[in-house]
């Protein structure tokens, strides 16, 4: 059995004023996995990252990172973590290289090793030519990459990333994805919070969805997506229709005369759908998902929770 790189048991956090940060959360991330933590704004994602890094103090529960208790063995637990926060949190007046070198020193690297590793991670992040430049002049995307480089300087076994690609352009986002895939392939356990569902579906082998401080869904990405109750397909038609065909057990609607939306229930194969449409004289030129599948899952679980009686999790 693989040891858990991250383990939370019955963890709760309530902020001053009564707002719930986390409510009795259990979560385990085995070593080497890539967990995507999803949830609407205020769901508790940043609170969870804060609790792991000790920036936020838990009211109760046990939190272990690399098998060290973050409350009683904080130094050892923090030594194995790298953290990329949601907000920029370096001194912008300092040169890029000094920011990373200082962080390397804080993790106990000798000055010579800190300089070497700084060069390596800045190169990895595509910032080596900015080493002597003040961080003030970096673009938003570069600042995010700098925070990733800083988090990697001591070769962490666990990497925590809180929305690392927010506001980053497409090219930068894909470069970050490649970097994270490589790190995970090298055995680094990654916890990623994101609002980009495509990002989570592409990168993460495990997902957890948080809502109002509670985990409302968790599991392997593939299994969770397979468990979708329904997915909506958008069909481009070969010939226009005046009305949506009526087929038993299928909800269909025309968005225009050339486009038909079909809610495909769980268990029905797309082949069956096409057979039945073909039998009705409907010819299909193209097909796509209306929403990203993870987006559908996300909205479904949040809606289920909203409809559930208070206190009942999923």
């Amino acid at each position, binding site marked *: 059995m693989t040891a858990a790189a991250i383990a939370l048991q019955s963890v709760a956090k309530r902020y001053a004023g009564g707002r719930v940060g986390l409510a009795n959360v259990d979560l385990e991330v085995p070593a080497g996995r890539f967990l995507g933590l999803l949830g609407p704004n205020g769901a508790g994602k940043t609170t969870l990252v804060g609790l792991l890094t000790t*920036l*936020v103090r838990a009211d109760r529960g046990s939190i272990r990172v690399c098998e060290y208790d973050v409350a009683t063995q904080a130094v050892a637990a*923090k030594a194995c973590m790298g953290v990329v*926060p949601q907000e920029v949190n370096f*001194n912008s007046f300092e040169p890029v290289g000094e920011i990373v*070198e200082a962080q390397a*020193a804080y993790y106990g690297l*000798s000055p010579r090793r*800190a300089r070497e590793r700084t060069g390596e991670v800045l190169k990895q992040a595509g910032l080596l030519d900015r080493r002597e430049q003040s961080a003030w002049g970096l673009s938003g995307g570069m600042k995010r990459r700098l925070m990733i480089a800083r988090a990697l300087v001591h070769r962490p076994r666990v990497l925590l990333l809180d929305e690392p690609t927010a506001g980053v352009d497409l090219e930068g986002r894909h470069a970050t994805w490649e970097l994270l895939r490589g790190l995970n392939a090298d055995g680094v356990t990654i916890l990623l919070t994101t609002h980009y569902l495509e990002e989570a579906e592409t990168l993460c082998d495990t997902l957890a969805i948080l809502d109002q401080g509670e985990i409302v869904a968790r599991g392997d990405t593939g299994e969770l997506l397979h468990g979708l109750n329904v997915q909506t397909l958008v069909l481009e038609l070969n010939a226009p229709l005046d009305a949506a065909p009526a087929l038993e057990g299928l909800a269909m609607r025309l968005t225009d005369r050339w486009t038909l939306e079909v809610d495909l229930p769980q268990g029905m194969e797309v082949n069956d759908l096409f057979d039945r449409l073909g039998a009705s004289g409907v010819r299909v030129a193209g097909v796509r998902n209306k929403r990203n599948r993870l987006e559908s899952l996300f909205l479904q679980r949040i809606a289920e929770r909203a409809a559930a009686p208070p206190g009942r999790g999923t």
Partner: protein
Amino acid sequence: MRLAAYGFAYRGMVVKQVRRFLRAWVQNLLPSVVTTVLFLVIFGHLIGRELGTMRGVDYADFILPGLIILAVATNAYSNVTLAFYGARLQRHIEELLVAPLPAWLIVAGFATGGVIRGLLAGALVALVAIPFTNLQLHHLAATLGIALISALLFALAGLLNGLYARSFDHTSVVATFVLTPLIYLGGLFYPVERMPEPWQSLAVLNPLYYMIEGFRYGLLGTGSFAWAATFWVLVGATLVVGGLAWALVARGVRIRT
């Protein structure tokens, strides 16, 4: 192994602190030098000539130890206050809080930065005073010991200010309304024994009085009491303030949620 790692971390913090105040050295180091030159020219020479000697030395020589210790204390204090408050404001205190550093090491890193700036400012003030005074060194250990412990005490006190400050205004309130008046009333410009009662007795309660008198003894060989007693009182105060700073940082007061 852990000790070596702590050593590198401590070095990293101190280098960062020193670079921080040297980046704006004109703003951080020169004001004390300019103020001292003005005090020595105006009070030491123009007015001091009328006053004659005090405790057997020229007036400019008499006020110089107080001016040096004023520079040491205010620079050490404001350096740590601004560094710590700035780190909280810009959130780069998190760089330290997420790293495997015990609270005492974080306190030591900030305090050392303040001590270095305080001693550097004191040395610069002493240097520019040479043309205006007969700078002496009566007792090396007393001079260095009092300067060092004063810098450390005020650096740690500055950390408490930086921890509790809610705005930039709060970073200067204590230095302006508490620290500077206490130094001025602690016998910088006059021997406390010349003050009328009850002010003379009240002056004895002013901790800055002991710093100035102890340092004055170190430079001039003149003072109201044994410098060693002053030194150990300051050590005690430093342990209390340092212990408080450590406890607050360890508990995460104002820096963790």
